[in-house]
């Protein structure tokens, strides 16, 4: 089975089978990452541009390493050094980059939907490394891979997602992916941070408080609280937020024994996640990061037309 898409912009656009294909490929890629010589010639001669309009350490590095392990040439462009500050439009920037004939553009952009805008106009593949509050498909995939590693399946899981769902592209990609794979997602957060019509996104339940969401959960996924995004109207103080929507060893007991704790990073220690939990036995945060490289290798590989490697 091949992968039919030129671009990967949202897990909403992928079928269950396509998601499985990406996860299976990622598992194979993981083997490469454990070798002494972590490099295969698969994408030799391909040029990949990492175009990051928003700051990123983890995701950008992860995409860059993924490209290099597949022997592609990767170039990083970040906003401070780009023409964005000179008033050039996104389309003009992309057209100029296109003239240099890249095969894949990996982009992060603050405006939801920017990737569709480019994908419609450019012949190269576009991979979404995060767009506004829309989706972050590589994060959704790496989260699902991490869950599958632990449970051997993705159907029938109870996954709690806690925090600012409204502004979270991580939450949207996880909801789209997980509900497609047969999991049930429970959302909790201050009502100021739960988007209208969230239940319509699939098998999703909006809970009245955090305890209800994590009660009996297989996975507790905590979202990063970002004061710079939330401003002053959505929550009074981080202290109060932490008290009602923070995960600590005490409320974690409500979840299943050995439930997974996940966080997309970077963590605000002592706010959404207490250090005891972040560094505890149930934390899979580092495993998520590790899987990130493999998942991104799989994404680069499949938009380049690769078949499943057996």
């Amino acid at each position, binding site marked *: 089975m091949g992968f039919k898409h030129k671009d990967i912009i949202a897990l909403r656009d992928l079928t269950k089978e396509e998601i499985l294909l990406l996860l299976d490929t990622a598992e194979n890629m993981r083997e490469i990452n454990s070798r002494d010589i972590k490099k295969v010639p698969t994408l030799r001669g391909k040029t990949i541009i990492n175009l990051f309009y928003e700051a990123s350490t983890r995701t950008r590095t992860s995409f860059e390493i993924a490209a290099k392990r597949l022997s592609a040439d990767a170039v990083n462009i970040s906003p401070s050094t780009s023409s964005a500050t000179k008033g050039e439009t996104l*389309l003009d920037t992309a057209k100029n980059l296109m003239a240099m004939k890249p095969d894949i553009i990996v982009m992060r952009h603050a405006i939801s939907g920017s990737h569709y805008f480019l994908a419609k106009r450019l012949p190269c593949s576009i991979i979404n490394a995060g767009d*506004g509050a829309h989706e972050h498909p590589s994060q959704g995939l790496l989260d699902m891979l991490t869950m599958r590693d632990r449970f051997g399946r993705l159907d029938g899981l109870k996954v709690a997602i806690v925090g600012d769902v409204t502004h979270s592209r991580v939450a*949207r990609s996880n909801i789209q992916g997980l509900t497609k794979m047969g999991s049930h997602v429970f959302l909790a957060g201050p009502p100021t941070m739960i988007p209208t019509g969230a239940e319509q996104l699939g098998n999703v339940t909006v809970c009245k408080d955090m305890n209800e969401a994590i009660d009996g959960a297989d996975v507790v996924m905590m979202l990063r609280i970002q004061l710079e995004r939330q401003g002053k109207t959505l929550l009074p103080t981080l202290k109060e937020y932490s008290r009602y929507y923070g995960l600590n060893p005490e409320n974690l007991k409500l979840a299943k024994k050995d439930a997974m704790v996940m966080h997309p990073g970077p963590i605000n220690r002592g706010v959404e996640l207490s250090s005891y939990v972040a560094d505890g036995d149930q934390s899979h945060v580092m495993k998520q990061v590790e899987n990130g490289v493999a998942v991104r290798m799989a994404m680069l590989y499949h938009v380049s037309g690769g078949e499943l490697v057996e």
Partner: protein
Amino acid sequence: MIAYNSGEDKIRPDNFIFEVIPMSLLIKNGRVIDPSQNIDDTLDVLVERGKVKEIGKGVKAPAGTETIDAKGCYVTPGLIDMHVHLRDPGLEYKEDIVSGTMAAAAGGFTSVVCMPNTSPVNDNKTVTTYIIAKAKAEGAVNVFPIGAITKGSKGESLAEMGELKEAGCVAVSDDGHPVANAELMRRALEYAKGMGIMLISHAEEKALVGEGVMNEGFAATELGLKGIPWAAEDVATARDVYLAEFTGSPVHIAHVSTKGALRIIRNAKARGVKVTCETAPHYFSLTDDAVRGYETNAKMNPPLRSADDVTAVKAALKDGTIDAIATDHAPHHLDEKDIEFNLALNGIIGLETSLPLSLKLVEEKVLTLPALVEKMSVNPAKILDIGRGTLKAGAVADITVIDPKAEWIVDPDKLASKSKNSPWLGQKMKGAAAYTIVAGKVVYKK
């Protein structure tokens, strides 16, 4: 086809005829619909020297009268769009008085009422006089300007409404920049009442809009776009309706799009508040699902709402809560629309698609034909007191001949407007203006 544009006349491109006023014109065999006189019958209309002379069966015309056979067509008082943006002066790269009035003529409108958010803002008689003079000299249809409520539409101090009215403004509005200060709005309503000029409110609580770019609802949630809650419109509508009630001043609410705002207006009308309102064709034709795919031609303000709101808009058209259909024709350059969704400007063009979209309401039995003509001609004329919207003998002969069966495709290359920002590009429309007649002169023929 009639040949008003004889050989030596200067001919505009396409179907626009600006020369030669016939002494007399007979429009025969059309279904004449004039709600101002309760007329709905197959009749002839005779026009002489720019005025309606006679309506009746088998009307005899003097020798040499030009004749239009309107068999199968509706003949109505000239359509009036009481909410357009002509972008002139200052923003002529989007539209100007010539292209805007040509779009109006092509859409069957004999009069347009233009909003003051030009550059400079129409908050003084110099700008008003310029618009009127240019429209008279070069425009295809009548142009009635709207002046600003506050100086520069900045919401700080009242504009000189007396001077604006004297110069020819038919209403005042800070469209797009709603008056945020409730005290100032109260005084504006009182002052406008004293000057005998209608105040049009763009009812929107900007604090609730925030950085929103589309209707707050499931589509926005899925697309990850910031929502604009319906409450932003309802809260502002309630404020202005209560201020109108308190001051006893009339108020007209522009482009109503929500169920709640309509309920507020309906209740206010029932208790005698002098409130009128309009909606736009997109608010009864599209929902916020049209934004999917990050379609910037579905981005406007107020935003496209839920299916529930569309149903409520239709019900309010039917029960008369909504007095008028106006397009909020908002031309924007391609560069302002062919960009990332959040950066795209609000608004769509509407003059050339309003008639077929509104005729659909008749097909769907939301409105009778006479009720539609009321909302597109009679009522706007009444609300603004501009002496149009009727075919009574002696009235200015502004007439629209509508071919309800004409099928056509919205082709960006054939639109008269300078801008092409329409969500209906490439789509099939049914119904069109066959002839647009201003003061007895055919200014457009299909």
